[in-house]
């Protein structure tokens, strides 16, 4: 009898239905088609990785599955039945749990409280704490971590890895059948990743379907069985791990026809003296930074999410200053401890998040443009000096320089499109006469036309002697704009690449597969 059952089960496994299926999913956001007719199947007892560049649509797809977004068209099937979710809780109750990169834990509450928030075991409204802790312990036992994590520990006292385990325990407590994880290994150490991999293996053997998004191909190949590549919102291919090599996957992730042409790169004679020199600089997050930036050049900073690129720009601008190492600006040793100092030294920073850090949304465009100029002038200086009377000329002039499309400069900045808002930020720094510009994702979320416009402007800047450092996750932008490319990985400099390096070379270096010959090549411009 037992044998009959075993053989029956074995047969079943080979013919099993997908636990979760998405068909023809399409999702649009203002200005961008995030997902275009994507269809995928997720099997029980399988680990499935979703890879792709930033903006490929991975997060959007996951959020749709988890009930956080509603697709514009397409359907979801759970166990063969059509389902639709209008709230993440519905998905959770049906067995789909998602763990975001920024955990959804309450730091000041215990593990048990966090797991059972909203469905605490209670009798007539009074918490049954013993029961709650007991059930929490049971759940932690299910994933084998009851020794490591106590149900009564405060979430804030746990390490990042332990917090992640609590999130997983929470999902298990919801009897999750599908577990989605967004960049689960981004903040983990090597050993912690191994433990996570083991746990994922255990969960998969229970018949769960695990889906995870990751940029780290090494881990993808360690943990996943199936790999799906998304590019520009479309499905490129789904492959079995055993059938491909990392380089193949990278090739599938990148490589596209350009949607616009980039301005010509600089020539060696365009690059002047070294304007910024960093030696062995570190702060709490990034370590051992060494590079030079020359007048008239665009230095591209490439790397994966979490590799420390933004932190590099922030450190240079004094937002999160370097704690050790040396910095030289125009040949003079300097320590930039706050943005005011950076600005006084003629640096400008076009940040990653223009809405929260770049513009003052309810002020008119003209005041946004003039903010830095005003800030560095004397406090009670009348606007006449540079202001209302002159700004009648200055502001339109700036507007023309950055090619802003607006009917009036008195409109509140919040009503502009993303592209125009970014141009306002650019204008602000132009007005302040900065000669070192730091850009962090200069064209993220911007329409193609404005993108081209901004790219032209950045190159224009260099022609006027400005030195540009540009952080970007868009490889075409890095390759199209950079005279030299620095690649960051794991919060350190992975290496330097010359202009016109290929996307593969960059990606390989960024994912930790650096080709030594590439690493040692001399940058263009150095003879």
């Amino acid at each position, binding site marked *: 009898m037992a044998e009959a059952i075993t053989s029956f089960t074995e047969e079943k496994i080979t013919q099993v239905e997908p636990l979760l299926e998405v068909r023809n999913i399409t999702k649009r956001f203002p200005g961008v088609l995030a997902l275009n007719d994507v269809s995928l199947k997720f099997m029980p007892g399988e680990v499935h990785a979703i890879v792709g560049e930033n903006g490929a649509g991975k997060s959007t797809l996951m959020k749709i599955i988890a009930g956080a977004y509603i697709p514009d068209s397409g359907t979801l099937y759970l166990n063969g039945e059509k389902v639709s979710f209008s709230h993440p809780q519905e998905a959770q109750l049906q067995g789909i749990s998602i763990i975001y990169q920024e955990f959804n834990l309450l730091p000041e509450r215990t593990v048990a409280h966090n797991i059972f928030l909203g469905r605490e075991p209670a009798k007539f409204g009074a918490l049954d704490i013993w029961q709650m802790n007991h059930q929490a312990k049971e759940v932690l036992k299910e994933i084998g971590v009851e020794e490591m994590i106590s149900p009564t520990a405060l979430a804030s006292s746990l390490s990042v890895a332990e917090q992640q385990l609590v999130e997983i325990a929470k999902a298990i407590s919801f009897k999750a059948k599908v577990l989605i994880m967004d960049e689960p290994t981004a903040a983990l150490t090597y050993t912690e990743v191994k433990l996570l991999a083991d746990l994922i293996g255990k969960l998969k053997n229970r018949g769960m379907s695990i889906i995870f998004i990751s940029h780290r191909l090494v881990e993808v190949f360690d943990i996943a069985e199936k790999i799906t590549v998304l590019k520009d919102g479309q499905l490129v291919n789904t492959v079995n791990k055993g059938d491909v090599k990392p380089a193949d996957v990278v090739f599938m992730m990148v490589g596209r026809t350009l949607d616009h042409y980039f301005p010509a790169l600089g020539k060696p004679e365009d690059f002047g003296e070294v304007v910024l020199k960093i030696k062995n600089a570190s702060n709490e997050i990034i370590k051992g930074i060494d590079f030079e930036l020359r007048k008239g050049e665009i230095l591209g900073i490439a790397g994966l999410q979490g590799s420390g690129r933004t932190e590099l720009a922030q450190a240079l601008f004094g937002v999160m200053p370097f704690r050790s190492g040396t910095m030289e600006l125009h040949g003079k040793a300097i320590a930039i401890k706050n943005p005011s100092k950076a600005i006084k030294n003629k640096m400008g920073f076009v940040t990653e998040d223009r809405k929260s850090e770049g513009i003052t949304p309810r002020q008119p465009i003209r005041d946004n443009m003039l903010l830095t100029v*005003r800030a560095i002038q004397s406090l009670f200086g009348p606007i006449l000096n540079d202001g209302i009377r002159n700004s009648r000329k200055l502001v339109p002039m700036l507007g023309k320089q950055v090619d802003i499309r607006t009917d009036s400069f008195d409109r509140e900045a919040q009503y502009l499109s993303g592209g125009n808002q970014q141009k306002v930020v650019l204008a602000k720094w132009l007005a302040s006469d900065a000669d070192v510009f730091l850009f962090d994702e200069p064209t993220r979320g911007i329409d193609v036309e404005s993108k081209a416009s901004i790219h032209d402007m950045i190159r224009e800047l260099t022609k006027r002697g400005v030195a540009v450092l540009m952080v970007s996750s868009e490889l075409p932008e890095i390759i199209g704009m950079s005279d030299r490319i620095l690649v960051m990985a794991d919060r350190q400099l992975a290496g330097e690449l010359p202009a016109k390096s290929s996307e593969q070379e960059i990606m390989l270096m960024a994912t930790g597969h650096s080709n030594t010959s590439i690493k040692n090549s001399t940058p263009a411009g150095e003879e």
Partner: protein
Amino acid sequence: MTTSAITSPGGFFQILRSTWGWIKKIPPVYPVFFIIFIVLGLLNPSKYQTLNGLMTFLRTASPLAVLAIGEMLVLALGGFDLSVGAIVTFVVLVSSKLLANDPANAYPAILTMLGFGIAIGLVNGLVVSYLRVPSFIATLGMMLLVRGGALYWVGGAPQGYLTDNWRAFGRNYIQNVPLFGRIPYALIILIVIGILSYFIFHRSHFGKQILAIGDNVRASHLSGVRVRLVRVLTFIVCSVLAIIGGVLIGGYGGVNVTIGEGLEMQAIAACVVGGVLLGGSKGSVPNAIFGAFTLQAIVNLLNLLGLPKPYTDAVQGLIIIAAVAYAALSTRKKL
């Protein structure tokens, strides 16, 4: 349609439409004020339909307007200053003692008061900037400090009377003015302060930075704004204006222990009525001034209609909540 625009029916509507568009842009406080004032005039013609009566009204409303300007600056910054009422109490009580019934002491006393104003504003600004205490709590604490200090200084009761020359600012009029008859000094002072404030707020780098901080403090910081300096200075200006308001109020009101009580809420209500967005990022000196005038008119109207004074407090509370709710809900709709 440019030719015979006025005569043709389509052109007429065009003009109506554009006038309506222009009218819509006027902050509501101005029409509201005029309507209320007209109603007042109908109810009590001798007081509100004569220039004399108007000037009397303005003498009472000007001090509140001065306080409202200061409060508006702090609100535009994204904070609150709840110590201004106590500051007025302080001015009136302590001056009664400093004057020692001797008119010669008037100007030194006023200068001393201004010095205190600077000190109080400085502490408020520093506590918020460096100790990171929310301005609401910091200034409420300052309110206790100032009130306690004032009462202690005078031993619980006014120590004398306020000399005539000291009171002149708030009480007296310039007489025999052509066309207007008489103009209260308080109004002149308000006009001077109003013009200065207008330039500082709307026409200087300082004012624009206040608005930037109230709108997005992080972006301001990243753009080089010296947030702490601007904040401290703003609180100082607010306190100093409260001192001036105190001199004016003591002028026409005389000495009284409870004077100044509740004025901070009146100042905020005036700003809210004038349309300042609570939470920073918007502000206007003229709107604050007319908000104060409107509030005073409302109070006078309610008194005229026989509503006992305490109910006006209640009405103020309602006005504040209603105005803030309106602002909060309408900004939500926009997003």
